[in-house]
């Protein structure tokens, strides 16, 4: 334990975020994972009683889990006797149960307690749910969060999530909305995977002696980006393969709407701030214009609280108003200068050789070349994997051609004897198709090779056999026609002779 703490301390000293914090973040993510399925389940089942809003339920149950985790850790660090620990925990659980019941059932403590005593279904359900999240928080607080634990919790959540969806859909629940469920599931998947990643990192990092903690902001951006991309792609794939186009598009539209709203909000923030700062300048601007425009406060009702200081300033005289502007722009300038200095310093530092450095192996423009090579290699690898199948198909085609050749020779009154090998039969075929000896050899050789497992390597070999067979087939048709014609002539002569 001491070694772990030493290691964690050292890790925090050597850059990156301290490994203790990774464990905390992992726990918070696991709380999110737990709430993602516990809250919907709770809200589905508690229809018989007061239904708390999702936010309210999440905050209460999350709070209970967090409290259990923190209490468990605190008691572990105090190293108290197990029975005392247990007593304290039971006491704390009862308190949190009372508070949670009061909030979740929206009733005073007295009635909540009486509901528990009377085994009121709503109160019993709350007891079960609170007990569950309390226990889940407690177990996380008593030991290091291993990747296995995180995965198990994620797995359990998945099962419950799926079971709930199955039940709701089969029961044709009125409050079932596929878009929000899909959205929640995507969020759950993202949080679950992130919690497993964080658990892995916090677990791997519980060692001492590291020179440098590599899990810094750069790592976070990379991991977060890849995870986001993977979950998004899997969501699109899942939506498309299961025919949930409309749900997917609705979800996508909602996501885009949300992102646009956030963007507009973020972009508008400085302008909103500026508009308030420029309020004292409006009289000056108005005076400068022939037709003074009305004050924004006349059009839009500005928060009087915000407006008041500026009004006071403007009432004090014309100088303070301009002073405010000067101070404002000076501040902006100062901020810009300090940022520039900091950026320059950061650049200077990054140029210095570092002991424990990370550097890219790629030269400018090399990434594109390597990416192309990797794609080509992948394609080649895929082709190589498919090659056996292609060879088997080509071999089957050659066998088929040879079988057709045998059929043709049989039709032309020259069948292959049972004991004859293809090479023994070749001279007979040569007598049948006198001008096509080379083509016959090509087909026979190809057949013998295939017969003994030497499958064609490329398509050219099959094409050569195909073209040879085309010539033989044409010749065969011609011979058949000739034979038929001869037979007809003989028959006619016979008839004429018989008739005469």
């Amino acid at each position, binding site marked *: 334990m001491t070694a772990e703490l030493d290691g964690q301390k050292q890790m925090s000293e050597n850059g990156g975020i301290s490994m203790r914090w990774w464990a905390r973040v992992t726990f918070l993510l696991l709380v999110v994972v737990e709430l993602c399925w516990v809250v919907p389940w709770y809200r589905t089942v508690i229809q018989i009683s007061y239904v708390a809003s999702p936010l309210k339920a999440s905050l209460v149950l999350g709070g209970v889990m967090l409290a259990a985790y923190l209490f468990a850790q605190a008691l572990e660090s105090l190293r108290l006797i197990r029975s005392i620990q247990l007593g304290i925990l039971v006491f704390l659980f009862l308190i949190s149960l009372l508070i949670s019941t009061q909030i979740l059932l929206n009733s005073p403590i007295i009635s909540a307690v009486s509901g528990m005593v009377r085994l009121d279904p709503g109160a019993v359900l709350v007891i079960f749910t609170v007990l569950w999240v309390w226990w889940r928080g407690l177990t996380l607080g008593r030991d290091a969060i291993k*990747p296995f634990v*995180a*995965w198990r919790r994620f797995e359990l959540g*998945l099962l419950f*999530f*799926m079971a709930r*969806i*199955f039940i709701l*859909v089969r029961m044709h629940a009125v409050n079932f909305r*596929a878009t929000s469920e*899909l959205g929640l*599931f*995507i969020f759950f*998947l993202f949080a679950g*995977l992130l919690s*497993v*990643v*964080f*658990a*892995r*990192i916090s677990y*791997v*990092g519980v*060692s*001492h*002696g*590291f*020179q*440098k903690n*590599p*899990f810094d902001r*750069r*790592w976070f951006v*990379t*991991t977060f980006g*890849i995870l986001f991309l*993977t*979950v998004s*792609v*899997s969501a699109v*794939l*899942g*939506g498309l*393969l*299961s025919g*949930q186009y409309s*749900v997917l598009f609705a979800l996508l539209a909602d996501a885009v709407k949300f992102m646009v709203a956030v963007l507009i909000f973020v972009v508008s923030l400085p302008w909103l701030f500026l508009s308030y700062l420029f309020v004292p300048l409006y009289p000056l601007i108005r005076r400068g214009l022939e037709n003074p425009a009305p004050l924004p406060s006349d059009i839009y009702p500005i928060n009087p609280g915000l407006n008041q200081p500026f009004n006071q300033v403007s009432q004090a005289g014309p100088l303070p108003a301009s002073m405010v502007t000067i101070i404002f722009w000076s501040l902006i300038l100062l901020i810009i200068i300090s940022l520039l200095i900091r950026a320059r310093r950061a650049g200077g530092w990054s140029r210095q050789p570092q*002991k*424990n*450095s*990370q*550097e*890219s*192996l*790629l030269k400018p423009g*090399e*990434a594109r070349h*390597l*990416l192309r090579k*990797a794609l080509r290699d992948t394609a080649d690898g895929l082709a190589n994997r498919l090659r056996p199948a292609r060879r088997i198909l080509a071999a089957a085609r050659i066998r088929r051609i040879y079988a057709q050749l045998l059929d043709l020779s049989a039709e032309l009154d020259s069948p292959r004897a049972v004991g004859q090998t293809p090479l023994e039969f070749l001279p007979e075929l040569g007598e049948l198709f006198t001008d096509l000896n080379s083509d016959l050899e090509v087909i026979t050789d190809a057949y013998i090779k295939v017969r003994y497992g030497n499958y064609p390597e490329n398509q050219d070999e099959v094409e050569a056999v195909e073209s040879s067979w085309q010539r033989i087939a044409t010749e065969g048709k011609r011979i058949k026609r000739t034979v038929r014609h001869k037979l007809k002539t003989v028959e006619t002569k016979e008839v004429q002779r018989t008739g005469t």
Partner: protein
Amino acid sequence: MAPVTWWPFLGLVFLLGILLKVYPLAAFSVMLAAVSILANWWKRRALENVIYQRRLHYRRGFPGEQVGLQVEVENQKFLPLSWLKIQDLWPSAVGPVDEFILQPTHTPESGYLVNLFSLRWYERARRTYELLLRGRGVYRLGPARLESGDMFGLFEVIEEKERLDYLTVFPEPLPFEALKLPAEDPFGDRRARRRLYEDPNQPMGVRDYHPEDDFRHIHWPATAHMSELQVKVYQPISARVLIVCLNVSTLPHYWEGTYPGLLEYLVRVAATLVQRGLQEGYRVGLISNGSLAHADQPFRVPAGRSPEQLSRLLSALAGVTPFVTGPFDRFLTAEMPRLPYGATLVIVTGLMSPTLAETILRIRQHGRQITLLSFARSKPPSIPGVHVVHLPFTE
């Protein structure tokens, strides 16, 4: 943790979702399967084209010195590695200056040098350490155990890199005065040194015969030509040869084990002798009944005076293990025919036995110049013609 076991379950859920028209369920199963397949694929390729190297500034040094080490790992592919843990088996005797950097293993002699990396596409990362050479030996660095997994932390993959490196820590020579050898003639061969040897393979001329000349050296064609007895004049050779014979047995019966303190001291004495011998202009060689690290045969370094000879001899002494291949007296008898004639033998031993004394006497009778350095508790017997130095070893 095996999300692979989920695949049949997910397939079943997908089918159920489609058949019972619970499409969200089918969508969830596809999403999970996609993530799981990607993670599995990632895991299989995680450690491909990952190159791990140890870069030592020096591969040899003396105890107490510090050697810079750079651990370097490269990810030569497009797939990033979310985490990469490298556990390198490291001898504690050449561990980092901060002893707590090494993680404990099942043996106290070694620890794990653990490094944690996170590598993006085509990226290289380095970690630097200062190693402190704490004790003599030839130390094997590695093998390294690489652990990584997919980006989502679902799977784990482990690979062992067999590439090993070696770090040699020479024995630290003692002050020559500590051996109490005469400063003027430390190896007791001054008289012999003055006598020039002649190499019969290198004739350089002829001269008149003197009565004391060897009859075999007469040059008969020249004698016939001059009608007077003429003898060959050979190239005089001035090289002096010193062979240090090290007895690594520290207990009367070699199978009884070893006395590490005494062994280390004997090796240090041998290192001091070879260093001094080379400084004095000797061609120095080394033989021992001990074995080198990672070997089970007695070793011998032929005499030489090349610039690399000192490092060769010290490397051999660095690798001396407590493993005794056989009794020293028998070993010496077996080695004698291989040693160059005229070589001075300096025998370094921590034990003296009547058989060893007898062997030394026999060798002396064959005309070898011998100095015996005994670190045994009991005084060695006086051997005629042998310069004996007795320095009982104390910790």
